[in-house]
């Protein structure tokens, strides 16, 4: 049974092609993915990401608890700030990648839809030794991502205060949009400036309608364009690049781990692997031959299988196939010539630094 967001009827009215994503019926595309991608890169687009999970942590020991449950250094952020971080198994396997926000009186974890249960289970297990309460707010919270250089034009007229317009990257504030109470965070998954807006589940349609009535209405965008945008940036996707069988070291996410403090669950395994070096590492690549790499394709080098493609799509900006792959660690450096086994044919590819395109979500 697939679940629907509170914006389902809006997507249907717009003629979206819907698809299953982690048990949710979500818009894949309204227009062509390329047109939606371009709208985000050049103007502004809006994504329904209400399937994502929100987990609240409250209690006097929230800080110490989150330092244990999450890999990044939680002491680096204060109220009104967010941080990209990971949740690990004791073996260092990735349970989820997420953003944690400090709000005035609580912490909020925004997690992947498919991992809400796994995150809750892990948090509750670790919470036993702390004075904290963990609760799932996902069913009450809808979420829209407004992304692109013109995001201010799209959201500005709806705001009760100018607060959200003055946020720095990864900051969060409360406001009202067209009368709907909302948390507005300067985050996203596209590489463009923009915000992610969380509001009460039932009020998302009113917020959506207000955005669409605006003079600078965002282009509704689906998951296919979102995948193009995040792959161009080299952002990992849980289930593709990140799984229970992969560690932060393999995934190139050492920067999101507080290696020095090493208080987080899974730290020992991560430290050990950081020391010994992993057998495989995640790399981004671009095709130098025609074709689009697909998840699961073999990566070849000198006639030998050296890795597996985890994500692949077309880059409209580069006008070629791009992707990410786990490859033998000695081949993961940028500018390594590899080939991708595309249905039995060897297609040339070259590893590249992430992001694959030159964007910055920090600048407006």
């Amino acid at each position, binding site marked *: 049974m697939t679940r629907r967001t509170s914006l389902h009827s809006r997507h249907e009215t717009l003629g979206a092609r819907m698809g299953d994503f982690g048990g949710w019926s979500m818009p894949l595309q309204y227009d062509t993915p390329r047109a939606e991608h371009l709208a985000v890169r050049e103007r502004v687009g809006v994504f329904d990401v209400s399937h994502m999970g929100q987990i609240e942590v409250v209690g006097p020991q929230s800080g110490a608890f989150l330092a244990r449950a999450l890999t990044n250094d939680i002491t680096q952020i204060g109220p009104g700030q967010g941080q990209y971080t990971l949740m690990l198994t004791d073996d260092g396997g990735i349970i989820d990648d997420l953003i944690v926000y400090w709000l005035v009186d609580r912490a909020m974890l925004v997690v992947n839809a498919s991992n809400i249960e796994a995150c809750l289970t892990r948090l509750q297990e670790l919470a036993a030794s702390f004075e904290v309460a963990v609760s799932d707010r996902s069913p009450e919270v809808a979420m829209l991502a407004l992304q692109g250089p013109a995001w201010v034009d799209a959201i500005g007229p709806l705001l009760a205060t100018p607060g959200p317009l003055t946020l720095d990257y990864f900051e969060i504030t409360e406001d009202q949009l067209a009368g709907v109470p909302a948390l507005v965070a300067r985050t996203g998954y596209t590489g463009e400036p923009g915000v992610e807006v969380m509001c009460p589940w039932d009020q998302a349609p009113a917020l959506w309608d207000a955005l669409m009535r605006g003079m600078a209405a965002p282009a509704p965008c689906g998951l296919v364009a979102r995948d193009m945008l995040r792959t161009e940036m080299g952002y990992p996707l849980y289930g593709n690049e990140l799984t229970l069988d992969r560690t932060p070291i393999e995934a190139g996410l050492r920067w999101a781990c507080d290696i020095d403090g090493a208080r987080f669950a899974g730290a020992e395994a991560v430290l050990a692997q950081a020391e010994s070096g992993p057998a495989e590492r995640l790399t981004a690549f671009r095709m130098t031959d025609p*074709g689009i790499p697909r998840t699961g394709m073999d990566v070849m080098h000198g006639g030998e299988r050296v890795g597996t493609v985890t994500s692949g799509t*077309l880059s409209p900006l580069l006008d070629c196939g791009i992707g990410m792959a786990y490859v033998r660690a000695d081949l993961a450096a940028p500018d390594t010539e590899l080939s991708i086994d595309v249905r039995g044919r060897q297609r040339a590819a070259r590893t590249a630094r992430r992001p694959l395109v030159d964007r910055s979500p920090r600048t407006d």
Partner: protein
Amino acid sequence: MAEPNYPDELRYHREHDWVRASGDEAVFGITWFAQDALGEVVYFDPPAVGDTVTADTSYGELESVKAVSDVYAPATGEVLEVNAAVVETPELVNSDPYGDGWLLRVRLADPASIEGLMSRDDYVAYLEGLG
């Protein structure tokens, strides 16, 4: 084109390919249904001029952002021309599947074999049967 469209003068193959025959020459392409299912086409991997394509057999691939699809020959013949415009600008298959988005021009081995393919009405009924 946004709306389903199946011209009368074409013959249709169950793998959603069309053929426009004239004497012993024919042009092949994919139908509105096929391009809609595939989504925006980004690559066409064609056979070479001079190759023989065989009825009911894949002669190339069309690749969209989300999927790859084999393209089936509705009839057997020798490739006379590959549509270079589609190789260069694959989305022509979406914008004009029966016109600028044609794929191959072939010399038919047996022009009479075209008669065995579906008419427009047969194909539309076939599509309805697919649900």
